[in-house]
């Protein structure tokens, strides 16, 4: 089948998609966007989290066809001027590197999208709010301490930038 949708601001048409494919598979294997990760493919780990019409979703649980006519934003599309020479990391991305929240990094894209959404909704989240928002994103490396640090840092930076 053919799927028409918007990815990171660009209108795309993908042909020959098999009906059983997930949005995650289509992004990773048909569109050269493997930033969204495939750690469990059953909605438990959050590593495949993308924005679907502005709402974070596990792209492994979304059928490719369900993306028809919709707007998807992946980790590849979060930075300003993504993939260009003038690429400027989003404060959430910057904070994850600086705070030591990235080790193997496999959970990182999903956590970044989820954290990005949290800070957009709750500019100054409490620790309890951060923990609740990220409870669906598994990380096996960090024990989450530096991830909390990163989200706090990103929230602070975004607040400063808004002032």
């Amino acid at each position, binding site marked *: 089948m053919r799927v028409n949708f918007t990815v990171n601001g660009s209108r795309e048409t993908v042909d020959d998609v098999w009906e059983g494919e997930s949005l995650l598979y289509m992004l990773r294997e048909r569109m050269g966007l493997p930033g969204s990760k495939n750690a469990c493919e059953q909605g438990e*780990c959050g590593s495949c989290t993308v924005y679907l019409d502005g709402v974070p979703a596990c792209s492994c649980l979304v059928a490719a066809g369900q993306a028809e006519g919709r707007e998807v934003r992946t980790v*590849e599309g979060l930075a300003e001027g993504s993939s260009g020479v003038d690429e400027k990391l989003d404060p959430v991305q910057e904070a994850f*590197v600086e705070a030591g929240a990235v080790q193997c990094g496999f959970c990182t*894209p999903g956590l970044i999208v989820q954290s990005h959404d949290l800070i957009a909704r709750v500019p100054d989240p409490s620790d309890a709010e951060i923990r609740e928002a990220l409870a669906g994103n598994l990380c096996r490396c*960090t024990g989450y301490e530096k991830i909390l640090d990163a989200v706090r840092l990103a929230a602070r930076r975004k607040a400063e930038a808004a002032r």
Partner: protein
Amino acid sequence: MATPIKSPGHVAAPGQGGVGDSPLRPDGTLKVTGEFAYSSDLWMDGMLWGATLRSPHPRARILSVDIGPALATPGVHAVLTHEDVPGRKVYGLDHTEDQPVLAFGEVRHQGEPIALVAADHPEIARRALERIAIEWEVLTPITDPRAVIADPANLKVQERGGIARHQPVRVGDVEAARARADVVVSGEYQVGIQDQAFLGPESGLAVPNEAGGLDMYVSTQWMHNDLKQIAPCLGLAEEQIRMTLAGVGGAFGGREDLSMQIHAGLLALHTGKPVKMSYNRYESFFGHVHRHPADMRYEYGATADGRILYADVEIVLDGGAYTSATLNVTGNAASLGVGPYEIPNIRIDAYGVYTNNPPCGAMRGFGAVQACFAYESMMDKLAAACGISPVEVRRRNAVSQGSKLATGQVIESPAPLAEMLTRLEAMPMPAELDASDIRDLPGGASQTTHGEGVVRGVGYGVGIKNICFSEGFDDYSTARVRLEVIGGEATALVHTAAAEVGQGLVTLKAQIARTELGVQRVTIAPADNTVGDAGSSSASRQSYMTGGAVKTACEAVRARLLAMAERKLGRWLRSFGDLNVVGGKIVSRSQGVLATIEEVLGDEVIEETREYHHRPTTGMDPVTGQGASHTQLAICVHRAVVDVDVDLGLVKVVELAAVQDVGKILNRLSLEGQIHGGSAQGLGLAVMEEIVVSGGLVRNPSFTDYLIPTILDMPPMRLDIVENPDPDAPYGLRGAGEPPTLSSTPAIVAAVRDATGRALTRVPVRPEHIVA
């Protein structure tokens, strides 16, 4: 030569900072933008997808295999069985070679690979697997490791017998000490099967090359050891295979054994096309070995004031169907079986056993984790029997520099366990429970009470782990360092085959080059086998070993740079032999700054490759277990504070506090990450993680049913990192990744015991153990 899209490349290390600083990760930006090329992200034009047919039975004879219908499926390019393995049909770690590339004759565990398919689409491959018809004679699996020990000649999963290794340790006279003991305590302890649960699935790409060999892009912990196993099975010379490390999504021991490497290689050679394989999570649970489950019996005798007189210990580790790392895991369990305590009389029997249960091998902590849960539980039992505090009983028996381990090995570098315990005890306690926010109660938002049944508990745990490979293994790493002027700036290139698995070795390599060469600009080459063996990213050894190799290679480059400077600046020098490199400048002690590195180097290139070996170790005596079998030891101590709902059986870990001696802090940010992450995996083992097996079958192979800690399960962690340098190690460092995984588990269980009064002899602790 064709290279895959998103293949690993050189990365420039950003920022500044030498040894002791915490510069940014060279791969950090790639990882936060989704650009980092993990092994599951690789893609090539015309590539096929490989898939694996696995045994549904833990033990069965294969009577026939019919691949005809599978091969006839449109879109299928190959269906392979053991008959298609061109070389050796078995492989394995440590020269054991008992694991079939594809099963023949008999399968020995559920999930054992039987056949392979290569197809245009992963779904076509999956459907073709369903069309492979196998006639089975199902056999009764051997699943009780203690039964195997009782009758190893008849209960043989492997031809060589039922027991992979029995390692005794004998010190002094246990019977005589028993007669003198004022207090005797005993216990039986079990550890369930823990999974590494790395998030990046087993995956990779095998690409046929012009020379009839393969270019392999895989995620592994030790590519040179992979190659030694892959090449003979594929009937290729090692020189015909180019290994490149693709991005690794965590490892924790689970990538020491091969997974899809030989299989993808077979399919690629057979079809002449690039073949990608990527397991899903279900398959991953069968695609790698796990932590050995353990069944342990301990008896300690002590004086009335809590000084241990003897330890009588039996440790049974179920290695499952194939040897994997069982020999060395058993050795570790034996040599570290009573922990960092001075005990004059010891009898330990550690067994690694073959069964038809899931194969077990390396996981963070490697044989020391299981024993640690038992010996720390025993310390608490002893404290209670003697009426002294858990911390005091540990202090009274603690090793220190100069003490002997159970193996008779003298601890030659600092081991200030008693002081570490005192520091731990003095760390501030977390606030009392505020039951007004339901999210703070055990069970969190799903709590159904107002916290009436919640009781707080505090517990302590101590762990000691060997760093680097032990028992006489010639453990080494290799580094190539190249210094040249690029774009007007002196640039160091660091090239090793060491696997970056998330731990931050790429950051550290750049730090070492900056410190040793005085340059700012460092480039990290991708890990591949065009440079010598780096050994495994395991045993907490890469900072030590590859760090040591990079340091040594840099020193050689620096020596040549300084010699070049003397030659080129000779006529201005008042004396020779007093030059150094500082902050990018050639500096003489007597004359100050003489030139920049760039001015000295000009367009010349200095390149050196060095191997680094650690202090040699000896084997363990097969009868007494005696020997200086470890090169370095590292200690971590934990305090856990828990809230337990004693009515519902729910546990919330409120805080973990740790004191760890790391010798020397090379990168505080990465180091803290290791301690946090190690503590988290120990928490998982304490209260939630277990691969449940019955009748040889895994009952929970998914992240829905195998639970690892989420951000809601992990408490704040308070760290006190101490530095007592090891004079034998580069910069005085001590490996740090594993020790916290040992000590957090017993600390948490002790805290739950403190809250509940329950014996809790098995991990993970389940709600029914608490409310029973």
